[in-house]
């Protein structure tokens, strides 16, 4: 059993006095982060229950606090306030070495003066495991990761992908309570990244431990996580399964961050007609799907100006609807991405590439969408009105 529980975690980096006096004013923001009396707030109000053997992915843009949160779980950063429990034990003041966790670093952090075998055996040696046990466990992990042939090599003699495997091997050799991964694939090229992503999914089946995985890549988040935690500016934006986050983003940020190409946004009006919710956008009027009707009614949402979000794959070419002009056409193989200008705004739609001549550029088109694929966000709070 290895549950990880974070309760109202906060991380504040004290501001050095001389910098504080220069320009930072209490309560103001520099860049994305909030500056208070205490200092720069990197993470706040972070509460999360991670179940045993769950694969949790923390995802968000640079500086959102995801790595800081992971490092707090690892014990590499002090927790300013809040509580951290691993297997029900209070861990705030416990040293990293006593937390029984393992971590894979972004830059692999392999000991350059040790061979692959020594790197993998190091933690077991520290635990004073017997030579036979060390050898058995190292070879077992090497077998899983297919690095047995490299055991006598030094890290500098390995490729990026091989180093990544060694870093994972070093982490799993101990059978830790939780395996933390800090952007482990970001130093790999696109092809290798896809390959390693699949390897991690397979690995997860074999080693059966709790994973906490940090990435800025939403594809990794969507494909790896049982649940994903979307973060921005130190706050959690949404915790849900990948499908839930994709289908029902909690706010404008999540809607824009998850999904490639990103969701299109329009200025629209939410209207009530005969007791049903409709969105009026750029001359088109679409009735929202029944499921959305129920949610909006349950929240007693009133008529208002909204931001309408529709994913590129859900916008369809039609005879009438939102009028736009195609400016760019990108062939992606099985599909084609069309960039349109709709009343001065850029909009992307995805159309099948087969059957079309591809000569879209400059053509005037009309767009429509289904009411089940429309997301309405408050202009004031940017929250999804369905929540």
């Amino acid at each position: 059993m290895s549950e990880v529980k974070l309760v109202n975690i906060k991380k504040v980096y004290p501001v050095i006095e001389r910098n504080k006096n220069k320009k930072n004013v209490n309560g103001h923001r520099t860049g994305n982060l909030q500056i208070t009396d205490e200092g720069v707030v990197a993470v706040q109000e972070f509460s999360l229950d991670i179940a045993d053997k769950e694969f949790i992915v923390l995802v968000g843009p640079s500086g959102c606090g995801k790595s800081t949160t992971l490092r707090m779980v690892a014990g590499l950063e002090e927790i300013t306030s809040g509580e951290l429990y691993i297997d029900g034990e209070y861990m705030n003041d416990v040293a990293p070495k006593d937390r029984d966790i393992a971590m894979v670093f972004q830059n692999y952090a392999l000991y350059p003066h040790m061979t692959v075998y020594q790197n993998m055996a190091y933690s077991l040696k520290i635990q004073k495991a017997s030579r036979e046990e060390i050898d058995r466990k190292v070879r077992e992990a090497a077998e899983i990761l297919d690095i047995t042939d490299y055991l006598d090599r030094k890290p500098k003699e390995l490729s990026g992908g091989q180093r990544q495997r060694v870093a994972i091997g070093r982490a799993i050799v101990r059978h830790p309570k939780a395996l933390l991964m800090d952007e482990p694939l970001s130093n790999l090229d696109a092809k290798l990244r896809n390959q390693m992503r699949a390897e991690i999914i397979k690995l997860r089946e074999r080693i059966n431990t709790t994973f906490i995985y940090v990435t800025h890549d939403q594809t990794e988040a969507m494909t790896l996580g049982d649940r994903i935690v979307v973060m921005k500016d130190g706050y959690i934006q949404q915790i849900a399964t990948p499908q839930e986050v994709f289908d029902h983003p909690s706010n404008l940020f999540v809607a824009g961050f998850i999904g490639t190409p990103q969701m299109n946004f329009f200025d629209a009006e939410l209207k009530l007609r005969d007791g049903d919710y409709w969105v009026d956008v750029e001359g088109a009027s679409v009735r929202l799907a029944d499921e959305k009707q129920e949610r909006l009614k349950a929240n007693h949402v009133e008529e208002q100006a909204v931001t309408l979000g529709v994913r590129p794959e859900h916008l369809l070419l039609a005879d009438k609807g939102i009028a736009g002009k195609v400016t760019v056409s990108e062939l992606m193989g099985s599909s084609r991405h069309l960039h349109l200008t709709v009343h001065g705004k850029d909009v992307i739609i995805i159309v099948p590439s087969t059957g079309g001549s591809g000569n879209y550029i400059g053509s005037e088109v009309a767009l429509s969408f289904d009411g089940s694929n429309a997301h309405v966000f408050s202009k004031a709070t940017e929250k999804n009105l369905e929540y």
Partner: protein
Amino acid sequence: MAESRRIKHRKTVSYAKWAYIFIIPFFVSYILFTLVPQLLTIYNSFFENYMNGLQQIGPNFVGLGNYKALLSPGQSGTIDILKYFGNTMALWILGAVPQFLIALMLAVIFTSARLNIKGQGLAKAIIYMPNLIMASAFSMLIFALFSKVGPINKYLVASGIIEQSFDFLTVKVSVRSLIALLNFLMWFGNTTIVLMAGIMGIDQSLFESAEIDGSNSIQVFFDITLPLLMPILSYALITSLIGGIQMFDVPQVLTNGRGTPNLTSTTVIMMLNNFLSGSKNYGRAGAVSVLLFIITGILSTIVYRMLAKQYKD
């Protein structure tokens, strides 16, 4: 067309020539003031060339005569150069061991992200300060402090620790200890700064990784910091060794050039200086320099092979 005809077309553009032009002054001064004197030293070491009173002897070619004379037992039955080399090494080791131990400890403390020591800038400036003072001036200070009528003796007598003044500069242990202390004080700050730079060059995530792997701070030091610091540590050790072999000003000033007591603090360079200042024996001094050069090369290679090479990744 006329414009285009004026443009010179080159096959390649060489930027390297500017680099060569910029480094010419270094090579010219190196050849004039270092290489030529070095070659002349080697040349002179094969000649008999000294003053006997007012009479100039030589230069006469004697082959390896100067070397043979240096490596033959003297009137006392000992080979002087070996004795002085022993003195030199003893003085260096006495100062270098604490110098490196303290410098390593301070470098680890100052660079620890977990300790996050405040006021590091001031501390670094203070420990580096003695290195800025001229060695001879520092030696004079210690000479004055520890002389028979100096403040240390006065204090020790006044506080009843000793009954009468103790002549620190006539006892082998105390003279060597004072020379080692001086060298230690002068150089531990410099070594600390060099080692700090070395530690800061190590990827921080390696320390974090070791911590997560279960190491305590002592294990992190011996398993991660020390092996990865070896290239810098061996550099510091070799430069310290070279400096140690060339030790001159501190024992020269402290013992007034006499290497007291009983020549136990006379170093090889002091011996070389004696050859030059008295009889202007260029041949013998040249031979000492050449032997010193060979020994320095051998010792540096040994240290490098022992430390840096095995950790070279």
